[in-house]
């Protein structure tokens, strides 16, 4: 089985993000970057499938020059080779990312395209679904369990209100939720090995993708802060505040 999988570079998910004073973006000074956690789940799933039944795992990232570092993490987790489409996040929306990935899908012709269900920076949760529609492929989003049997994939999907199971025929698009697996930490030998794995660099010009955005973020601001609260010392004091001040009980 040949699997294409995403490896998006995101700001450290646990970092406190601050907006630039002029509202043109976020403060990046001192920020660390990581592999998108949901992409880690997708990569882990791809590598596990490969370990079971062979085939090839191709990891793809779209991002600035530094995004190759995170692509190397995907290679260290077990992907065989990488594709780095050079395009900064600021020049991208979900739709453009999807149209780039559609081109790569058409080039690579994988049996399965695994993505993280969302990137924890833009939080849009669109790309996998867009790709599936552009390619007229079945999708299984928010996957928490995957089983392959022949040319069919059985997927458990985490929904509000319960767990759904669907079956999709390959090729298919699957987006990973957090419960799909526990992503492995790359071992040092694998990190070293990953440095020698091939990475193809591409541009959207070379791919023939129109850079136009459908949705553009034109300003960034900090959300209104909650008014500072107080600390109470006892349950009695808490009850008094909830009943008499907040009138919440």
């Amino acid at each position, binding site marked *: 089985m040949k699997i294409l999988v995403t490896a998006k570079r995101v700001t450290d998910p646990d970092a406190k993000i601050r907006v630039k004073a002029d509202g043109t973006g976020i403060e990046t000074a001192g920020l660390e970057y990581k592999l998108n956690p949901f992409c880690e789940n997708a990569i882990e799933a791809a590598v596990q499938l490969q370990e079971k039944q062979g085939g090839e795992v191709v990891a793809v990232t779209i991002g600035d020059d530094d995004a190759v570092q995170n692509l190397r993490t995907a290679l260290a987790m077990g992907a065989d080779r990488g594709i780095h489409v050079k395009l900064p996040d600021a020049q991208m929306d979900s*739709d453009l990312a999807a149209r780039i990935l559609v081109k790569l899908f058409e080039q690579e012709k994988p049996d399965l395209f695994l993505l993280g269900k969302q990137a924890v920076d833009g939080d849009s949760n669109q790309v996998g679904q867009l790709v599936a529609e552009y390619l007229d492929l079945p999708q299984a989003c928010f996957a928490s369990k995957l089983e392959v049997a022949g040319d069919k994939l059985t997927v458990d999907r985490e*929904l509000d209100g*319960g767990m759904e199971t669907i079956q999709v025929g390959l090729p298919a698009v699957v987006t990973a*939720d957090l*419960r799909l697996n526990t992503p492995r930490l790359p071992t040092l030998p694998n990190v070293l090995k990953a440095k020698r794995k091939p990475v193809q660099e591409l541009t959207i010009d070379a791919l023939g993708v129109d850079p136009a955005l459908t949705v553009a973020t034109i300003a960034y601001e900090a959300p209104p802060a909650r008014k500072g609260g107080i600390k109470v010392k006892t349950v009695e004091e*808490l009850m008094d505040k*909830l*009943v008499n001040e907040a009138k919440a009980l």
Partner: protein
Amino acid sequence: MKNILVIAETFQGKIRKTSLPAVTFAAELAGKVGGEFSIALFGSGVAGLAGELTGFGAKNVYVVDAPGFANYLGGPWAKAVVALAQQAGATAVAAVSDTFSRDLLPRVAARMGAGMVSETTAIVGDGAGVKFQRPMWAGNVLGTVEVRTPTAVFGVRGTDFDPPKATGGASAVQNASIAFADDGKATYVKFEPTVSARPDLAEAAVVISGGRGLKDAAGFALLNPLADMLKAAIGATRAVVDAGICPNDLQVGQTGRVVAPQLYFAVGLSGAIQHVAGMKNSKVIVAINKDEEAPIFSVADYGLVGDAFKILPELTDAIRKHKGL
């Protein structure tokens, strides 16, 4: 985006009330761009529910009722929604952001050639210059976005728009003939609902969430008497769900459920960025944690530093007395 089609959702044979704030969004947007809105209801055996949607000022309530729509599948549903949007002359489609619409709407957007705004929290400006706000980076950033396509798709954050107001008018119910185009590429197998006697997280006036500080299932169960008494929904942090103590759909946060109840209790949870993203718009937040430096205290209205195992029974007892139970 002057003619907006709102997707109302059904769940287990009923209108999902949490999907209706999208009607409020559409009414507001229609007002600001000088347009109108209609509501669409898809499903099998749902025609009888249309009457519940006719009082909100929509021009039409479209019903697509066919056996094929008994269960959701992304590909065929996206085709059907776009077909209805074309029949209805709609140039925008909106639905409340939940796992149903997050799956469906991007496909609809791709099919319409429309830009999509996810998790829309506000409409800014009006007319041709109308823009939208949405949270990014787990709610630490509020982005203002403009849609650059003639058509648009909106995921609407349900906690940021009120339930729709009854206008007293009566929308026309239109039975739309849209076929379920099964391409055979995906098959529904089963759905296992989370069985709970408690209200749904998104609908409850009081939510009580527990974190790792409650240690295990027995510790987490200490939330039950309090939840019973307040008719509260129970939520959890990722750590609790990962430990198998709670079902997945009780996870509150950036990538789980977003709630904004009247009263939110955060018990034994530190307040990680990802969790806070899902609850910081709650009206009143109470935090109970033994670590006085825990970040949850910076978003809480009332913080109580101490051992949750000791405080929970005391608090439950105090509320019981207050309520005269």
